[in-house]
């Protein structure tokens, strides 16, 4: 469903600090299951996820989603695709300080203008599912790492996206919390969502539904291991 053809990404092209973060990536990702991107730090995992998730455009190459070419879409349509197709879980959680857990979860849906009642009900249901109901009214800066990660996950799901993109979801968590988050990602895959994870944490491969492991090094795909 997601297809990359000869994708390159350069940062600061033409300047002395030019950096080739991704080189000639050809890749086809099928719907469903968990796909893990591995590789050492700086190998391009995050960059690849931002391109797939329409957060940035490739310097060259083509990216398409369900046969629809994304790389030349105007920014408005790209946002539209991103909003409805992808939910993001960031390494640093990226919750908005000063807002409550509930507000943070509802945030991605604001521009859609869904009726308030319906939206809060949906957000609360997600919080209940992740055991965060008692925290709904708390400001996010008071959350523990695990709670923050689950809040981020709930936020990623509020617009009911088909694909969940999680960048190093266990990097800031201890083993117990890591297993917990992986369990949740596993559940999402079980529901039929596509889960894309970057990680160099061996724990990640324990998740039951890891379908495929892709290995990156210096911006190139160097390994493709079905699991």
């Amino acid at each position, binding site marked *: 469903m997601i297809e990359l053809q000869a994708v390159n990404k350069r940062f600061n092209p033409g300047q002395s600090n030019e950096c080739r973060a991704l080189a000639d990536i050809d890749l086809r990702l099928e719907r469903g299951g968990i796909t893990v991107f591995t590789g050492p730090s700086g190998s391009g995992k995050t960059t690849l996820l931002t391109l797939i998730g329409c957060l940035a455009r490739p310097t060259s190459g083509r990216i398409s989603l369900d046969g629809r070419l994304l790389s030349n879409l105007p920014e408005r349509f790209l946002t539209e695709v991103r909003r409805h197709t992808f939910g993001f879980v960031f390494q640093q959680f990226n919750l908005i300080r000063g807002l409550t857990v509930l507000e943070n979860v509802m945030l991605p849906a*604001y521009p859609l203008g869904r009726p308030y009642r319906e939206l809060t009900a949906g957000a609360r249901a997600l919080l209940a599912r992740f055991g965060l109901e008692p925290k709904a009214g708390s400001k996010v800066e008071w959350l523990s790492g695990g709670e923050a990660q689950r809040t981020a996950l709930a936020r990623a799901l509020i617009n009911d996206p088909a694909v969940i993109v999680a960048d190093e979801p266990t990097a800031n968590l201890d083993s117990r919390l890591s297993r917990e988050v992986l369990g949740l990602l596993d559940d999402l895959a079980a529901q039929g969502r596509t889960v894309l994870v970057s990680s160099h944490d061996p724990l990640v491969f324990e998740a039951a539904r890891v379908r495929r492991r892709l290995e990156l090094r210096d911006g190139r795909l160097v390994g493709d291991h079905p699991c």
Partner: protein
Amino acid sequence: MRVAFERQKYLIDYTLAALLRRKTRNLGLLLVYALLVFLFASVLLLSQGLRREAAALLQDAPEVIVQRLAAGRHDLLPADWLDSLRRIRGVSDARGRLWGYYYDPAVKANYTVMAAAERPLAEGEILIGAALARVRAIGVGDVFSLRAASGPPALFKVAGILEPSSELLSADLLLLSESGFRALFQFPPERYTDAVLTVSNPREASTVARKIALALPSSRPILRSEMLRTYDAVFDWREGVTFLALAAPLLAFAVLAWDKAAGLSAEEKREIGILKAIGWETGDILRMKLWEGALLSLTAFLLGYLLAWWQVFHGGARLFAPILKGWAVLYPDFRLTPTVDPGQILIVLAVTVVPYIVATLVPGWRAAIADPDAAMRG
């Protein structure tokens, strides 16, 4: 339609929360901003109010005033001029006026003293302006003493307080009978301070003035329209000076506002990046920024303008009155008639609110058009 409405509601919600999150900064900004609107609006409201007052005043003023000049200076007007004036075609009536100034060392102020033409007053009676009555703490029935030109003080009985619609000119007014006036100042008989004319057709006032100048070469006819222009010029000048004095704080605020609004903090940039990453469009961010600018600046505007309105029309305009009124001395408690002028509100809005909104929009836009991938890197 409903969706668009809901979306704006969410955006306002978010904006309010964002404003509250940076409470100290925004509150400080709001106060400085409101103060500026207050100063600016005060000057505008006050000068406009005074201008309107002066215009209303001159509405009742005579079409033409005739003075006599001697060596280019104002001289007393002989009574037989009145007959010559009445004979001029277009003049329906001419009336001599007696008026002058009286310096009161007790309050260090000049009063305007006039012989009352329309009111029957006995020689020892006097009518005084409300402000004057307040300052000297006297009322009806009290005795008011004035230094006579002949030496010994002349005593007058206060027969009434002048309570006209506009206190602007009558505040420091003293009205005497004609004989009282002549006695007090030892004013020569058969002489007047100046003359006022009634013209049959006000539109021909300038023609009449030309004829007067021909018939009485040492006369100076003054038209009401000329007086209006002079008033306007004086107000314009004073308004200009005041605005110039306000320019410094205005500029300082502009710099401050630009800096505060334009210099997005790292935190705000991060937030914009996150919002974009989780599905907000550039347009959503701009709308949010628009709300932010509008909410803050409109609140400041309302606060400042209402405060200015209140202080100009109900607080006696203590702040700017001395500069803007200037020529008058006794206006401790004078009141302008409250008015609301949409055009003027638009001006204040345009110079205060619009620049601020632009100042918040531009950097928001700059942050919003960047690729949101920075959110992934924190």
